[in-house]
């Protein structure tokens, strides 16, 4: 039998309330300051280095995102590291704080379904991140205009907009993970620690572990080693394992979109390069096609994690 009424009744109310809470919260302010200052430092270095190398690059604006000047990593790499932190910060206490404040049963006694509450919280947090990222994106373009003095071309804007969209989905993965943990663990501190643990594992430890595991699964042939080459089997395993981490998916997608000369994200055979003009930029559509599987992976991760949280939340007892 179908249940009566719409599951989305009350969604917009929850959305507006949560959005207002996020935007006015001190927590959000701190996260934004952290990201803006780190990103500004990276941008400053990037602008300095670009000014010295005179602007012959046709994609000067995109270079702002990707250039790295030791000791600072590139702007995109910093975001790849910090977006999860922001998403976790907004999601780790989404449901358990309602339990602990004892507001959950009062809210659910209003004529809404649980769907609206969970969905509203998710969308509000995602919108908050979206707004911050859009502001950051405008900041980059604005600084680029001021300091480089070169107006960005249409394709550059398009590519950087793709960056914005993929970054929001990347945040979605971490947000739905944090919300899932906020449903599983009754204590916000536990949920925060576990999500931060997963984040550190996937962004710091996994890039080191994946090659080791690949080496164990597919030991490289000594003949390749003699020739000073990597065994393709091991390389493919390493890459497949790395792709389990959303950080890697985000990194690969950004590489394809923001560096137009990227032709492939995996190992290639020499005959596949036949007729290729090395170093020539790919058209926008082709770059997007290269980043497409990674983007789909991020969207799928968001959906799977959100759906598991949804199922758990529907079955959870409301009493504190």
């Amino acid at each position, binding site marked *: 039998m179908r249940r009566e009424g719409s599951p989305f009744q009350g969604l917009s*109310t929850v959305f507006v309330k949560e959005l207002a809470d996020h935007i006015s919260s001190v927590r959000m302010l701190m996260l934004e300051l952290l990201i803006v200052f780190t990103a500004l430092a990276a941008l400053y270095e990037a602008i300095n280095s670009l000014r010295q190398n005179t602007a012959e690059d046709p994609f000067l604006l995109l270079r702002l995102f990707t250039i790295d000047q030791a000791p600072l990593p590139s702007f995109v790499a910093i975001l790849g590291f910090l977006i999860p932190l922001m998403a976790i910060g907004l999601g780790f206490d989404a449901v358990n704080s309602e339990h602990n404040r004892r507001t959950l049963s009062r809210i659910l*006694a209003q004529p809404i379904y649980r769907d609206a509450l969970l969905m509203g919280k998710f969308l509000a947090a995602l919108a908050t991140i979206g707004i911050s990222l859009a502001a950051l994106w405008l900041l980059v373009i604005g600084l680029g205009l001021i300091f480089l003095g070169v107006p960005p071309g249409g394709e550059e804007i398009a590519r950087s907009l793709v960056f914005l969209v993929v970054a929001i989905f990347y945040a979605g993965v971490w947000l739905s993970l944090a919300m899932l943990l906020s449903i599983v663990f009754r204590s916000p501190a536990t949920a925060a620690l576990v999500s931060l643990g997963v984040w550190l594992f996937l962004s710091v430890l996994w890039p080191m572990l994946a090659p080791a595991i690949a080496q164990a699964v597919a030991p490289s042939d000594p003949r390749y080693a003699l020739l000073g080459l990597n065994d393709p089997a091991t390389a493919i395993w390493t890459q497949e394992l790395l792709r389990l981490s959303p950080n890697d998916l985000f990194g690969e997608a950004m590489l394809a979109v923001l560096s137009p000369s990227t032709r492939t994200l995996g190992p290639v055979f020499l005959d596949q390069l036949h007729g290729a003009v090395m170093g020539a930029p790919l058209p926008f559509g082709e770059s997007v096609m290269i980043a497409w599987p990674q983007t789909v992976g991020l969207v799928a991760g968001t959906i799977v994690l959100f759906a598991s949280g949804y199922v758990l939340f529907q079955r959870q*007892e409301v*009493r504190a």
Partner: protein
Amino acid sequence: MSDQQNDARRTARDHVITARGLTRRYDKTVVVDSIDFDIARGEVFGLLGPNGAGKTTTILMMLGLTEISSGEVSVLSFNPAREPLKVKRRVGYLPDSVGFYDQLTATENLAYTAKLMGLPRAERVRRIEAALVRVGLADVASRRVATFSRGMRQRLGLAEIIVKRAEIAILDEPTSGLDPQATQEFLGLIGELKSEGITVLLSSHMLDQVQRICDRVALFQAGRIVLMGAVPELAVKVLGAGFVVEVEAEGLGIARRLAMIPGVTQVETLAADRFRMTAERDVRPDAARAVVAVDGSLRRLSVDEPSLEAIYARYFQVQPTGDVRHAA
């Protein structure tokens, strides 16, 4: 035939909540064990029992907030498991130690739930203002709830039910943890709801309060309703008599004399000069005569209303409980 139809219609109108064989199991543990009850419109109905006896679970099943394992319950002739929105639109719920968003003001908190109820803006503002005046929180309407005392939070919770214009108000442990004055005020507010014709269902383990305001009570024990009815009825059923008379008098053999009065079932000697008699009728004149007959000096003669506390104590004394679960 038409009589039966009339009868059925009348019952449907008069009983706002009907439960039949209502059961809730968690894995193997039965929390609510096949309970039946009917609650009439405009009645104040009390759910009593120790913590963990299944009161809150019963309430949550009525609101469709927890699954029903078997049996059925109908609230205002809707099935809360299938039509939760219709039920929740008409029923107000004040949870056990209710919480609010501390960073928002009283008005903002109510505005959020009023929006969830789907009230248009003008209506919302009007109702919230009126409700806050009624529960005596108008002065602090724009203060953050973080500064509120427990009593104020409870009243704010009641204001939410008033904003909703609920037909049934379900209050879970509404007075636990309140100081005596706050309790008095809160019970007064519940009385006002009743006088407006709102059906009030309230769970508590504070027996004297329940007795003061409830028309009927149901006594829960380990997931079952072991006793149900109006307090005087239960007194007769459990205490075996409706009247408890206390005599304070000095004299020889008064206790024996008192026990001989027809209708007296028991005489307890509380102190050398104080006796408590349990009787089927008001035996005060006979007691006075008995004291005078032994040439005693009568100092006090009082009749106790049958107390729920006595019923409760007696019931659990007579039927020692094996496994009363103590869960929150």
